[in-house]
Structures are given as structure tokens and as C-alpha cells.
């Protein structure tokens, strides 16, 4: 597997500009002759479609929803980072670059992260121009707030609905191109395979979710903007249809899969209430700006929170990390919560939660100010738990939220398959082993609006294409393979529902490969996952037909892929014997229980190559060099 990252030469500040100059261009009159297939319509997909459409390419966008606006980017709450330094608190491109590399625990590629920080400012400019109603001050200029992992305010936001507003901005820009005739949106379509011809990605096979038909689409480049795979844990903050299937299909066609075990467990989620639960709900990390996290000092203290006096409370984040306090990065806050819960100090009916208390900030700022800033989050909390967060502290517990791992891409965002690109959460490139809050929106839009339009053109301009059309045998073969898998699933007629098997898998993943991992547990998971997979292929029940709107079949196909992917995830976790970012190996920690990296042996991206069904995937490594930022123990004390 060739893992040449194609990082441009020259000083880091100049790399992106000089690279754009060196990339081939496509003549404006020739652009409409190129067909670009974009899978997924979230921030990355919609913004890429808008930009490429504006340039004049012929773009098709595939979404499994009824509308592109439903993509899960819509649910992001807190904000988007940029190095504008409007608050005059010392921010710069260099500092955002530094914070992101450090926040990722030195497991991201420097050149990519620097470019992300550079582009961050253009994103804000463009989104304002698109009519995104960001929060403003009375003077009419933009407002900022702070987020975890940063000691300054660089986060732009639109109430608690920043993801929604940014996605609607990108979506509207894309719809303008639909009107202009450059972009065609194919809704209720799920990509089921990537078609590779003459060594290049030349199209996809998509399933029409209403009719069940398998449709072939040919093109010159395929962009996967298909999000992350946190639903491998069954319970996560992701939407129900988020999946690994598109990335997994690409992997099986030869795309390298990087760092699959790098998962972000988000600290501020509403705790689970029972086995019926279908998802976990996240509350924005911005709550940690004003909420204080604590547990009772005494184990098993069952008094209501308001009756526990100040001196009997342990504000464990403020105690352990005085410099950052409640605003430590997500991985650190999550692990600290797990630690106190494991000590038996957890609160609530299950003991699996900690308090997030606004008492002091309500006293300091007034109830109305807190309501103004977080009102929708308090409402959401009330709707789900029937508890009033203004009167007594909220209860929170960490939950799987985001996946830093993903398809390996080079500096051009191209996977190891020529012509197949991966954007946004679907790739692995910018967040290392832990993503900072408000950086996912930034990356999705950087990739889609600004990076892919240049690098995809560079690929098209430099490539000689053989003829390819949807009638080619490669498309027929891919569709037949998918059809066989569907037929096999439908013919089993067993006793277990796809959701039940998914939940079984999720339990194994959470218990053996969740917030803390060790060799014995991981080996146990490697034994259990194939058992559940065996159960799926012998006992799953999917009623109904294939050529129909069949949601159980859709779910079963996703679960089948998760059951294969989970094994790679765990193998990656086993292979990486160090702790870094969201990946915490109990064997590798400091005396104080903090994560301990092993830079001598693991300063690389672990990239897995598919070797065929029932064969062990091969591990390749892309070494990471840190020339601009000194690697140090990540301290937030």
C-alpha cells in the first residue's frame, strides 16, 4: 500500500498556496465534461457540491435521506472554530494549528492541520456571506465563545444550533447550483459499492431506498462525505442512519482505513435510562463554560444534590486540572468522569452519571443570561429526563460521539484508490487521536468548500481517462455482488432482529473497547465479535422483499458491515499499545492515571489494507514527523 502523503515542499505557511499553484487546472469550458459523484450531503458533501458546481463541473449528490438538509451535521450544537482573533485574546493561525495538533495528542499530520487553521477564517467569511445568522454583539459584529482545549475564545456560534445553520448555508449554496443545472441531488439513495476500473474509482452502485433498485452511476471522481462510524457502539450521539458502510465498501475495494480505534467519547451527554434506548443525546460542550462538574466526595451519597454542602462536593475537573478546569478537552473530561463513577461516586438512579451544576453561574450572571445562552439545551434536558436543570444540577455521562479514524487520505484528500476522495469525518486526517470541540464543522467545510475543489481539479487535470459508463461489466459485477448479499440476508429468516444484534455488538464494543481498553478485554472482544457475526448470518430475521421500501433490510445491511468493521477497530486498538487522545490503554498511563504516549513506537497513523474475506487485514504505517510543534506530554494542569 502506497502511503505517500504528498505533502508539498517548502515552509509550512506556504505549502498550501504553492501546492494550489502547482496543481493542474481544468479549463472552464471542459469542466462540464467531468462527472463528479458526491456521496453524502452533510457539511463536507453539500459544500463540495456547491463549490464544484459553481466551478462548472457536472455534479451528482447522493443522500440516503429525503432531503440533503437532514444529514447529521445538522445536529452539531456548539460552534465552529476560526483563528480570526476578533476578541483580541492572542489567537492566530499558528495558535489554532498548535492547539489542534496538541489537542489531537500529536497523532495528526502537521501540514494538513496547518492548512485547516489557515482556511478557518475564510470559512467564517463565506458562511456570513451565505446568510448564516451567527451570534452578534450589539455593535453588530460577530460574537465568540470559548470551548474545551483552548484558553481563548475562537468559537463562532448560532445559538445552540450552529451545525444546523452551517448545513443550511451549505445546502442553500448547493440548491443554487441545482437551479443552475450543475448539481443533481439524488435523494433516498444509499451507496452500496464503489466501482474501480483500470485502477481508478469510476463510479458507484447505489440502492434506491424506495424501489429497492440497484442503480449504477459512472463518473470521473467519487467523493465520500459519509461521516463517522460511532454507531458501531449502537448507543451513540449519532443519528440512527449514520453508518460505516460506504467507507467499508471503499476499504474492501482497496482504500486504506486509518486509525479505526480513534473514537471520541463526549463528556456531556444525557445518561441512558434503560434498555429501550435507541440513542444518546448530546448537550453542547459549551455548557462547560458555565456549568461545574462534580460528584459527592463520599461513595454512595444518596442525598439530593442540593442538600450536599459545598465542602462535601468534589469538583474533580477543577481539582485535577486547575489551568483549564471544566474546559479540559473531551477525552480528559470523559475519562475523569469514568474514574469517579468507577470509584462508586456516580450519581442518579443508575450511579452512571456525574453532576453538571449551574447554581453558581445562575447566581453570578442571573437566570435570564443563562437561559439566553443555553435555554434550548435546558429544554432538551427537561424533555428527555423530566428534570429541571435550573433547579437542580443536570446529570451527564460520556457517550461515543465522533470518530477521528477514517479512510486514509493524502494531502489532496485522496484515498489510496486514485479518484476516490474522502472528506469531513469520513477521513482520518486532521484531528489525530482526539478532536477539539467546534473543530468538526471547521474541517467539514474546509474540505468541502476550499480544499477538494482545488485538489479534485488537480486530479482531473492530470489524469488521462479511459472510457467508462454505467453499462460496463465492472458495474454489473459490483451490483451482482451486492444483490447476492441482499438475497442471502433475506433468505435467513431467523429469530433475531438486526437491531438486537446491533445492540449485542454495541455492548461488546462499549464494555471491552470503550473509554478504557486493555489487552485482555480487547482479546475477549476479538472472540465475541465473530460469534455475533455468525449469529447474524445464521439467525437474522428480515421480513419483506428486496424491491421495496424496506427499512429492516437497510438496517441489516448496515449492521452486517459494522460486524465486520468492529473487528478491525478492535485489532487496531490492540495493536496500538500506547495511550493517546481518545484511545486509552490501561497498560500505558502515568502514576497519576493520565494517558502516556509512546512516541518512539507509535508516532504513526496505522493504516489497514483489506486482504480478502476471512483473511487478516495487513497493517501499514504512515510515520508522522513533528517539525514545527514540539511533542510534549499533553498537560492541562
Amino acid at each position, binding site marked *: 500500500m502506497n502511503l505517500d502523503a504528498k505533502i508539498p515542499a517548502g515552509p509550512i505557511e506556504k505549502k498550501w498556496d504553492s501546492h494550489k499553484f502547482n496543481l493542474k487546472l481544468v479549463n472552464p469550458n471542459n469542466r462540464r465534461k467531468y462527472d463528479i459523484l458526491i456521496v453524502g450531503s452533510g457539511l463536507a458533501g453539500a459544500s463540495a457540491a*456547491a463549490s464544484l458546481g*459553481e466551478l462548472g463541473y457536472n455534479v451528482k449528490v447522493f443522500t440516503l*435521506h*429525503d*432531503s440533503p*438538509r*437532514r444529514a*447529521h451535521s*445538522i*445536529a452539531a450544537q456548539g460552534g465552529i472554530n476560526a483563528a*480570526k482573533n476578533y476578541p483580541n485574546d492572542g489567537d492566530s493561525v499558528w495558535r489554532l494549528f498548535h492547539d489542534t495538533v496538541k489537542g489531537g495528542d500529536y497523532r495528526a499530520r502537521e501540514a494538513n492541520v496547518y492548512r485547516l487553521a489557515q482556511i478557518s477564517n*475564510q470559512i*467564517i*467569511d*463565506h*458562511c*456570513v*456571506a*451565505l*446568510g448564516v*445568522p*451567527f451570534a*452578534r454583539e450589539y*455593535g*453588530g*459584529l460577530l460574537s465568540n465563545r470559548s470551548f474545551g482545549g483552548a484558553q481563548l475564545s475562537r468559537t463562532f456560534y448560532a*445559538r445552540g444550533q450552529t451545525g*444546523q445553520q452551517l448545513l*443550511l448555508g451549505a445546502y*442553500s*449554496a448547493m*440548491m*443554487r447550483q441545482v*437551479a443552475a443545472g450543475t448539481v443533481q441531488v439524488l*435523494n433516498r439513495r444509499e451507496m452500496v459499492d464503489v466501482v474501480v476500473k483500470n485502477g481508478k474509482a469510476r463510479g458507484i452502485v447505489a440502492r434506491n431506498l*424506495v424501489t429497492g433498485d440497484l442503480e449504477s452511476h459512472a463518473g470521473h471522481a467519487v467523493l465520500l462525505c459519509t461521516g463517522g462510524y460511532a454507531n458501531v457502539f449502537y448507543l451513540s450521539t449519532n*443519528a*440512527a442512519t449514520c453508518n460505516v458502510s460506504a467507507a467499508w465498501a471503499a476499504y474492501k475495494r482497496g482504500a486504506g482505513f486509518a486509525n479505526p480505534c480513534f473514537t471520541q467519547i463526549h463528556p456531556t451527554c444525557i445518561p441512558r*435510562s*434503560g*434498555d*429501550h434506548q*435507541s*440513542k444518546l*443525546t*448530546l448537550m453542547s460542550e459549551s455548557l462547560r463554560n458555565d456549568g461545574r462538574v462534580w460528584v459527592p466526595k463520599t461513595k454512595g451519597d444518596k442525598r439530593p444534590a442540593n442538600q450536599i454542602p459545598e465542602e462535601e462536593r468534589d469538583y474533580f475537573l477543577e481539582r485535577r486540572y486547575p489551568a483549564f478546569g471544566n474546559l479540559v478537552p473531551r477525552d480528559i473530561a470523559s475519562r475523569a468522569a469514568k474514574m469517579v463513577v468507577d470509584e462508586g461516586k456516580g450519581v442518579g438512579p443508575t450511579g452512571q452519571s456525574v453532576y453538571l451544576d449551574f447554581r453558581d453561574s445562575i447566581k453570578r450572571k442571573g437566570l435570564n443570561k443563562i437561559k439566553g445562552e443555553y435555554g434550548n439545551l435546558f429544554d*432538551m434536558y427537561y*424533555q*428527555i429526563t*423530566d428534570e429541571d436543570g435550573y433547579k437542580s444540577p443536570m446529570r451527564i455521562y460520556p457517550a461515543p460521539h465522533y470518530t477521528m479514524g477514517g479512510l486514509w487520505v493524502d494531502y489532496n484528500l485522496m484515498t489510496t484508490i486514485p479518484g476516490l476522495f474522502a472528506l469531513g469525518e469520513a477521513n482520518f486526517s486532521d484531528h489525530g487521536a482526539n478532536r477539539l470541540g467546534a473543530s468538526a464543522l471547521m474541517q467539514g467545510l474546509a474540505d468541502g*468548500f476550499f480544499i477538494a475543489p482545488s485538489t479534485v481539479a488537480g486530479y482531473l487535470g492530470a489524469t488521462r481517462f479511459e472510457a467508462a459508463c454505467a453499462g460496463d461489466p465492472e458495474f454489473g459485477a459490483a451490483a451482482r455482488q451486492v444483490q447476492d448479499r441482499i438475497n442471502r440476508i433475506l433468505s435467513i429468516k431467523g429469530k433475531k*432482529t438486526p437491531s*438486537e444484534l446491533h445492540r449485542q455488538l454495541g455492548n461488546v464494543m462499549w464494555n471491552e473497547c470503550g473509554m478504557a481498553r486493555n489487552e485482555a478485554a480487547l482479546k475477549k472482544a476479538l472472540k465475541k465479535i465473530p460469534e455475533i457475526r455468525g449469529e447474524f448470518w445464521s439467525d437474522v*430475521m428480515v*421480513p*419483506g422483499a428486496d424491491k*421495496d*421500501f424496506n*427499512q*429492516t433490510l437497510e438496517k441489516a445491511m448496515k449492521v452486517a458491515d459494522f460486524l465486520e468493521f468492529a473487528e478491525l477497530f478492535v485489532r487496531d486498538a490492540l495493536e496500538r499499545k500506547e495511550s493517546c487522545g481518545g484511545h486509552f490503554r490501561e497498560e500505558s498511563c502515568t502514576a497519576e492515571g493520565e494517558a502516556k504516549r509512546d512516541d518512539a513506537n507509535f508516532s504513526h497513523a496505522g493504516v489497514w489494507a483489506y486482504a480478502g474475506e476471512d483473511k487478516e487485514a495487513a497493517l501499514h504505517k504512515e510515520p508522522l514527523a513533528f517539525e514545527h510543534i514540539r511533542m510534549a506530554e499533553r498537560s492541562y494542569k
Partner: protein
Amino acid sequence: MSDKNNFSVTIRVWRQDGAEEPGRMTAYKVRDVSPDMSFLEMLDLLNEDLIKKGDKPITVESDCREGICGCCGLVVNGDVHGPDDHSTVCQLHMRRFGDGDVITVEPWRIKSFPILKDLVVDRSAFERIMAAGGYISVNTGAAVDANAIAVNKDDAEEAMDSAACIGCGACVAACPNGAAMLFTGAKLSQLALLPQGGPERERRALTMLAAMDREGFGNCSNEYECEAVCPKEVKVSNIARLNREFLLANFFGKAEPDLAPAHLKSTPDIPEDE
């Protein structure tokens, strides 16, 4: 997991095999419902049961399950998005119901949103309204510095109130005329309130209303049902602004006259909702 607080309900639900098939109400008993379950989790429970029996589960759309994606939309006991105010049906919890309750569940019933299967409707008419002008025409890379344009904070807040629309279609489903004026008015308002949206303001009002008309949505007759059911509390003042934008565009606009939808000229104005 059974619990002493758990209870049983009967669900009367619309079943329809496909767009061209006839539909009917079918009743199912759902047992062991926890008050902490969301309404959709209760339907999951029923569907799991149906799958195990080899029956076809109820086709129902939902995704984020936290009230923001706009996928879900059901009429529960005659209420659009269920009995709770200003929330989506995925945010409804079973603690609102009791043992033995009979709950009627139907899809949106609107000519412009044809039923695809069971509880799922086709809302792509909204996409065509958006494509007709729900944007500001600025190419990537052409923007000035974000702070180059100051925006009055109150205007920005009001634009955000309108922009909060999740495109679920509840406003249309609740309207006796099947009008999409709250949806369209919200987008028009958001872009009219911001200086960035100024240059295309008149053109946008004409083209979006023309698209709304083409899709067969009805007219507003001041029922205020849309505002009452909107999960994001989008106000009918957005419809008043839509009407003003439309009139201004007709009187003073430079856009081509064929963009003006004829019948909308008779739409009554709505007093500003303060």
C-alpha cells in the same frame, strides 16, 4: 426488562404498502412500555415485535431523534407532532400516556406531500421551493471579511428565529389549506433581514412564491395553526413579511413579470405578531 411502572397501549396506525396502494388503519397492542421511552422508541418496540413474527414493520422516518433533523413527522391523536407544544414527535415521551390508552398515528396528509409508504411522505416539494431562490448568490472564495458588514443584533436574532425552521412540514400538515407559507416565509424573512440578502430580495420573493404555487400548496387564511404546531416556534409574522416582500417586489421590483404567481395577489395580509 420489565418494570412495575411499565404499561400497555393500543396503537391505531395508518398502513399503506406503496404510493399507489390503498391504505387502512390497523390496530396493534404494545406491551411493556416504559414511561421513559420516547414515542418513537415505543414504535421501535412494536416494530421489533412485528419483525420477529415475520410481519412487515411500520415504515416510519426518523434520524437524529433530538428534534433537529426534521425527518420525523406524525399526527398523533390528531395532533401534528403529538400533544406537546413546540417539539417534534421524536421528543415526545411515553410518560404523556397511560395504561390502556388508544393512540392514533397517521402520516402528514397533504396533496403536495404524497404518501410513499405507511407513515412516510415525500416532501421534495420543499426542495424545489428552496432551489427557486432560498439562497444568497455568492461563490466560494468571493466573500469579504466576516466583520466587514455589521448586522443589527436584533435583526440577526430575528433572522435566526426564522432560520431555525427544520423543514419537517408540520406547518403544512396543520394548515386547513395545506399552505407552505410559513416554511417559505421563514426562509424569505431570514434572507430579507440580513444585509447580505438585500440584492436578490425582490427576485427571491417572486421566484420562491411561484415555486410554492407550482407545487400546489394552498393559501393562507389566517388560521395560525402553523405557528401553533411549529416545533421551532417560527412565527406567523414570517407570513406577514412574505406578503410584504411579495407586494414590494411587484410594485417596485425589477424582476421579470412572469415570475409573479397570479393568485397570490389576493392573499390577505396578516397583522404583525408582536
